[in-house]
């Protein structure tokens, strides 16, 4: 028979123990928050460090002048134009390929060893270190196909590098579209391609876009594979313009042009003995971070919005 006294005595003991245990809860939640903040603080420190160092070069001139032996007048013009052009190639190689592959795997591929093979391939490619893509580029594009150390080579390399990202996000966003929508379209007589083009692709475009942005941000910051194919040059001019004023108005000569890109320019300046160049490098670093964070931020925001808006 439980008496009031024994119950109360017991309770006092239990309460003391609970207090002790709850202290652990409290301590852990602080540790947990700190553990997560370490990453964030690092990022912040890094960014502040770069901003403080690079501050004097946050001018428009910095973006509109060519590299120079004089740190103070050196600029990023050829680097950001190079980055832009390389990204253009990357975009046009990875996006159609990746989206098409994603569509094939989700919508068309029969469930057999063949699609398993592709599937395993894509997951593994996503884990291949970027430097290995550099080796691929060196062996295949530079020497195998003789494309040289050109914008085309760099763009294709980064395209392959982000291909798995595009494929995986494409598949994920396609998977979110319910069967009932597909069946509805088929039921009014749409062909498979019409279903894919009018519906699947249309409704998953937001999700696919986030994948593309994240992939492009990654490509923008990649350095190792580009070093491997041998950039790192003094380039104080722009590649031939992709558009011209005489017919046929578009030319592809720029694809074969040599180039430099933002991370390489940063790398280059940091290997200068003169400290003044390190300021340029810091400013470049801050710029790369801002751009990639903006891109990633857009992607995350976009995904958030899609999740919020589309409730099938």
């Amino acid at each position, binding site marked *: 028979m439980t008496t009031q006294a024994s119950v109360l005595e017991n309770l006092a003991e239990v309460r003391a123990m609970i207090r002790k245990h709850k202290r652990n809860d409290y301590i852990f939640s602080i540790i947990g928050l700190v553990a997560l903040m370490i990453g964030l603080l690092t990022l912040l420190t890094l960014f502040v460090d770069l901003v403080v160092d690079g501050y004097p070069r946050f001018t428009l001139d910095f973006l509109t002048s060519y590299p120079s032996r004089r740190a103070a007048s050196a600029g990023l013009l050829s680097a950001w134009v190079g980055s832009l052009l390389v990204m253009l190639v990357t975009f046009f190689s990875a996006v159609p390929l990746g989206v098409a592959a994603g569509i094939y795997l989700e919508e068309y591929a029969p469930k057999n060893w063949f699609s398993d093979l592709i599937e395993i391939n894509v997951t593994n490619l996503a884990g291949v270190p970027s430097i290995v893509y550099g080796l691929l580029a060196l062996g295949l594009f530079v020497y195998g196909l003789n494309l040289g150390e050109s914008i085309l080579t760099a763009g294709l390399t980064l395209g392959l590098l982000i291909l798995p990202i595009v494929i995986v996000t494409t598949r994920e966003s396609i998977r979110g579209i319910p069967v*009932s929508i597909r069946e509805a379209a088929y*039921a009014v007589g749409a062909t498979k391609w019409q279903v894919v083009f009018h519906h699947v692709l249309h409704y998953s475009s937001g999700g696919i876009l986030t994948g593309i942005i994240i992939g492009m941000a990654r490509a923008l910051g990649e350095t190792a594979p580009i070093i491997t194919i041998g950039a790192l040059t003094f380039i104080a001019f722009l590649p031939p313009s992709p558009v011209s004023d005489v017919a046929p108005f578009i030319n592809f000569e720029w694809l074969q042009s040599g180039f430099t890109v933002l991370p390489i320019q940063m790398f280059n300046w940091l290997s200068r003995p003169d400290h003044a160049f390190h300021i340029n490098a810091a400013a470049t670093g801050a710029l790369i971070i801002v751009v990639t964070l903006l891109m990633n931020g857009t992607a995350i925001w976009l995904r958030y919005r899609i999740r919020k808006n589309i409730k099938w």
Partner: protein
Amino acid sequence: MVTTTSPVKAESRNLSFYYSSGHKALKGITMPLYEKRITALIGPSGCGKSTFLRCFNRMHDLYPGNKYDGQIVMYPDNTNILDNGVDPIEVRMRISMVFQKPNPFPKSIYENVAYGLRVRGERNKRVVDDKVEEALKGAALWDEVKDRLHDLAFNLSGGQQQRLCIARALATDPEIMLFDEPTSALDPIATANIEELMSELRNKLTILVVTHNMQQAARVSDYTAYMYLGELIEYDDTDKIFTNPSRKETEDYITGKFG
């Protein structure tokens, strides 16, 4: 409800169906659909009603490994729509379908209804406008949406969405319309609307409807088929089925002893 006899619009002949799993979900079903009549399919869950219905627009072709055996013949042209030489897409243009849960596309109301025409390559805006209006009127939705045709379809209520799906199915002038439990996701008022609509549609086309709700079958249909374990147990005038079924199994089901 059956007033006069009417020609047969389509007929399943000894139709069996196998899912890719090997499961035989339909076992030799022979059954007519009379023109401009409503035929209801009833039976306990899993008996194969949806499976049967979805044979009529070859929906099963979408999933590899499914197999039909037997025929579904359409009149007056006497075509076996399960034939390999027949294009399932063309079948779906003649026989449209309304699903259990309203499934409008995440597009505007207008585009939802126009979709069947777009798929057929219709570009003429006048034609499309007219058809959309006609279909929405046919689905008793025109008055409610005519001022917001370019709103997103998702913004409609469940019942409105289902009527929109009916309008979408109507817009291509189908000869037969399939309904798979079209009201099971709807509230009683929306259900009554849809039932009324179906009765009206009977003037224009042939209807096959699957329903869980026996009262509904009794209310709307001219003929009723009772299925059990993939077999057609009984097919007859609705009145007859509900008042005086010839088979014991049917009676048990109708009276709620079972199911």
